[in-house]
């Protein structure tokens, strides 16, 4: 990790090259602003993804860091929130392994206090963020159709046509029609046609690792373009250990290290922390100083509080006929019918994803079949491909007792305290899950499935709310432009800035907010975009 001397000072230092950081790097660099991105992980070349894909199907996580203990963490609370498969280190960050689902939030998601009398309103409205959703969809290459009757109005078309509905979506569509439930396309940042120099999806079935690059990830969609401007540099294998402020409460430098653990410093006029909802909060807490004993930008005491995700349950049923699962790695249909509606003050919103891959794999059926020899293949063929599944993503209310804190008793590769995640869900979320399970079971029963059952409670790899935005510095960590209330040259971008979670996956909103914040920073510098 050789860092040239001239890189030790820059205009904007971005910490993390994932969804938010990668997008901000391009948005700032193309306006002529000098950017250095410090990324904890390596650059994962596209050419290596074929091998990664094979490793993934063997149960390995190819995005895992080779540094022993760097991703160590501890958990508490009623639901043990696990991080192992939920984060990735490397240029591209979590967009390396995300599913690519790109739903917008609904207008009322930004106004939960006003509309439903619970939680808080965001300091920005859907109308304010809507143009940025369009920009984010173009930048990521979102394939979709405007066929969700409950979606909030959009001013721009999807840049790519939707993926066609699958064979198994046909079963769901018939049952949903009978029950009065609208089934529609699932928007996703994945190329239904070749787009922006990346190939069309080739149905490789391992979207956790997309071997063709058809799924958008910022290592492909943003970082190369940012570097090509000549104004951005990516420093890989550079884990930021703490941030240092001066006596005037200006953030002055990021202290970082690589595998050799030797510390280096990068000074900048502006800092953007874009390390995900867990690591951003942790970095602020690790940066406690005599003037900020509770952590940087944490006079409110809210850094790390309100950790929020999306509780999930899969409901499955068995069909008499073959449904041919596992031929693509993503879903093509959903229902947003339950994402906005009355009663949301009592129970969470949810959306239904109609799975194209459910049920056991051949390698899971065979070793428990009891069969061997010539009978084994027959048994596997008879058992395989008859399961249909519906995934429920439920809204979670912000809860101050769900937190990311430091565990000083356990240390990471660099000797720093690891994050401790306390997570649980309450009656609001359980009521949503219960209702959603009943609806999913009705759909499966209507299409003739048997042995209908709910899987265990899970949660999405969405880490939200840990540095929430708001107008009141006592009730929030960042303002509407994602600038820290307490530190004027510090911006905190990513899912941690969400005020409420909605039931939508967060990445498109993270991207839209990142573009908006980059425009704000450019205005501070008074520089228009070059293209």
């Amino acid at each position: 990790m050789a860092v040239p001397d001239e890189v030790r000072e820059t205009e904007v230092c971005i910490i993390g090259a994932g969804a938010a950081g990668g997008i901000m790097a391009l948005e700032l660099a193309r306006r002529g602003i000098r950017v250095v991105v410090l990324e904890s992980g390596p650059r994962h070349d596209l050419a290596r993804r074929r091998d990664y894909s094979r490793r993934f199907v063997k149960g390995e996580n190819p995005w895992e860091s080779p540094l022993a203990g760097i991703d160590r963490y501890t958990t508490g609370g009623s639901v043990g929130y696990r991080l192992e498969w939920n984060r990735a280190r490397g240029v591209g960050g979590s967009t390396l392994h995300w599913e690519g689902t790109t739903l917008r939030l609904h207008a009322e998601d930004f106004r939960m206090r006003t509309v439903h009398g619970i939680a808080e309103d965001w300091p920005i409205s859907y109308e304010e963020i809507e143009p940025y959703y369009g920009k984010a969809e173009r930048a990521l290459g979102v394939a979709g159709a405007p066929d969700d009757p409950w979606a909030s109005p959009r001013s721009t078309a999807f840049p790519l046509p939707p993926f066609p509905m699958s064979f198994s979506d046909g079963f769901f569509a018939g049952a949903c029609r009978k029950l009065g439930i609208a089934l529609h396309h699932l928007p996703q940042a994945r190329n239904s046609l070749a787009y922006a120099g990346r190939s069309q999806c080739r149905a490789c079935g391992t979207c956790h690792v997309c071997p063709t690059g058809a799924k958008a990830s910022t290592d492909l969609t943003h970082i190369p373009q940012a570097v090509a401007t000549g104004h951005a540099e990516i420093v890989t294998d550079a884990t930021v250990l703490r941030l240092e402020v001066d006596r005037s409460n200006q953030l002055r430098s990021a202290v970082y290290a690589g595998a050799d653990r030797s510390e280096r410093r990068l000074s900048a006029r502006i800092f953007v922390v874009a390390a995900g909802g867990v690591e951003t909060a942790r970095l602020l807490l690790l940066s406690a100083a005599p003037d900020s004993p509770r952590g940087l930008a944490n006079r409110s005491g809210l850094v790390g509080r309100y950790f929020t995700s999306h509780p999930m349950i899969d409901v499955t049923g068995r069909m008499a006929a073959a449904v041919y699962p596992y031929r693509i790695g993503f879903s093509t249909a959903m229902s947003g019918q339950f994402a906005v509606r009355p009663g949301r003050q009592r129970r969470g919103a949810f959306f239904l994803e109609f799975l194209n891959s459910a049920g056991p794999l051949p390698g899971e059926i065979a070793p428990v079949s009891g069969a061997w020899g010539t009978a084994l293949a027959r048994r596997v063929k008879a058992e395989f491909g008859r399961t249909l599944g519906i995934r429920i993503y439920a809204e979670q209310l912000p809860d101050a007792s769900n937190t990311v804190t430091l565990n000083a008793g356990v240390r990471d590769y660099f000797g720093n305290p690891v994050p401790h995640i306390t997570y649980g869900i309450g009656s609001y979320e359980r009521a949503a899950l219960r209702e959603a399970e009943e609806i999913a079971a009705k759909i499966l029963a209507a299409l003739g499935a048997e042995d209908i059952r709910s899987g265990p409670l899970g949660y999405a790899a969405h880490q939200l709310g840990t540095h929430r935005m708001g107008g009141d510095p006592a009730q929030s960590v960042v303002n509407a432009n994602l600038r820290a209330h307490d530190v004027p040259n510090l911006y905190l971008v990513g899912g941690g800035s969400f005020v409420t979670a909605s039931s939508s996956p967060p990445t498109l909103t993270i991207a839209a907010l990142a573009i908006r914040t980059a425009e704000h920073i450019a205005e501070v510098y008074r520089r228009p975009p070059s293209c």
Partner: protein
Amino acid sequence: MLALLVLWRPQRFAQVVSRRFKPRLDATAPGVLSTSEMQTLVAFAAVLVEGRELDAQEASYMVEHITDKAGKTPGYLALYRKTADLLDRLAGAPFSSLSLEQRTGLMKQHGFTDYDVRIRECLLPWGREALAVRALAVPDLIGGYYFSPAGWAAVGYRAFPSRCGELTRYTSAEA
């Protein structure tokens, strides 16, 4: 005491026995098998997974699985070694030198094709080696083979997770 547990809480009894006496992987270090050990394991697996000789491609899936597990996961090198050694001893010759019929007969005779291990078998003080092969090695080899492209071929899939194909194939029934 034991009799009471069996009569009153049979499921609990099964759990206790299973936890205490069912063969488990040890924590021995990963490593590399010899060529003859690998040949024995592939010859054993051929009877289990297909009931015929594997072609070169199918055998390569098996070799890849065994090599990966032995080389990366603690306990598997020892399990595979124990399996190969037992099979060669029972055969009185390299197991891989036997014909398919001889191998099948030997495996049936010693119960290796019955890998649904029953609780009472776990309590017997003898036959622990063979029990470990049946409880651990057999399901592992079967699973490894069916997780490979051979498993997808068995269900009629030409393309499958990690092997890309034509995008719109998913929109209709499999040909």
